[in-house]
């Protein structure tokens, strides 16, 4: 190595403040589903806990809504499980700071393997209820408390 190494840290000139989008600051949640009736209890719990839930029927509408205003969390309910990874990636390309949760019937271990690297908060069952909403918000708070 060339050059004389000097202590690097604690130099304010090297510190920059950047964050991705507005995702970390709000409680706006996007829900993509073509089965709104299956989400009634789940959505009611999110709203009870102070979240604003915006529902879209398709992934294209979901992406358009995300581009307009980055949500803290996007919930995806794809018609086929093998679409999930691609759909999450499409949202990540808009803003990787957006958290996601995905409806799946996959075993949790298989789901983790298939979706590895995407940082999905949790898989959701096809008919998520209030308890899943509470668990999801708890995970979201934990992740945010760690700066993610």
């Amino acid at each position, binding site marked *: 190595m060339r050059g004389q190494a000097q202590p690097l840290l604690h130099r304010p000139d090297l510190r920059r403040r950047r964050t991705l989008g507005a995702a970390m600051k709000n409680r706006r949640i996007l829900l993509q589903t073509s089965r709104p009736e299956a989400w009634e209890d789940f959505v009611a719990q999110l709203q009870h806990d102070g979240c604003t839930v915006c529902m879209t029927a398709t992934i294209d509408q979901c992406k358009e809504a995300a581009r307009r205003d980055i949500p803290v969390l996007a919930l995806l309910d794809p018609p086929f499980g093998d679409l999930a990874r691609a759909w999450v990636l499409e949202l990540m390309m808009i803003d990787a*700071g957006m958290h996601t949760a995905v409806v799946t019937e996959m075993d949790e271990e298989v789901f983790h393997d298939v979706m590895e690297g995407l940082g999905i908060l949790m898989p959701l069952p096809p008919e998520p209820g209030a308890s899943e909403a509470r668990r999801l918000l708890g995970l979201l708070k934990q992740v945010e408390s760690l700066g*993610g």
Partner: protein
Amino acid sequence: MSKTVLAIPSELPGGMDAGMGMHFGHCDIYTVVEIENGAVTAQGTLPSIPHQQGGCMAPVQYLAGHGVTAMLAGGMGMRPLMGFNQMHIEVFFAGNYPTVGQAVEAFCAGKLNRFSTDQTCGGGAH
């Protein structure tokens, strides 16, 4: 003068002689070096931060907050790679260098390639 602040996931205790931490999100510590005109002008370490499922962006935000402008990595998920890209922090693949010093030397010599999406962990390939 162009200055690069380079972060390298490392094994303990960090520094040029330390082994590379092969997954940035689960590394022991970060070695951070400042490079000007192809030469290391400063170095130090940053503690790593806890990792939690869904919390891939925490280390990205953390390193950005410490002024990091480029990153060397042996393993990384798609979401943090996208996060680094969106924050204009360049990520280079250095998974074939055993020590931090060797990886930094390769970076200074312009031998490293950009970390591609094909190299990310995921989809059952890791």
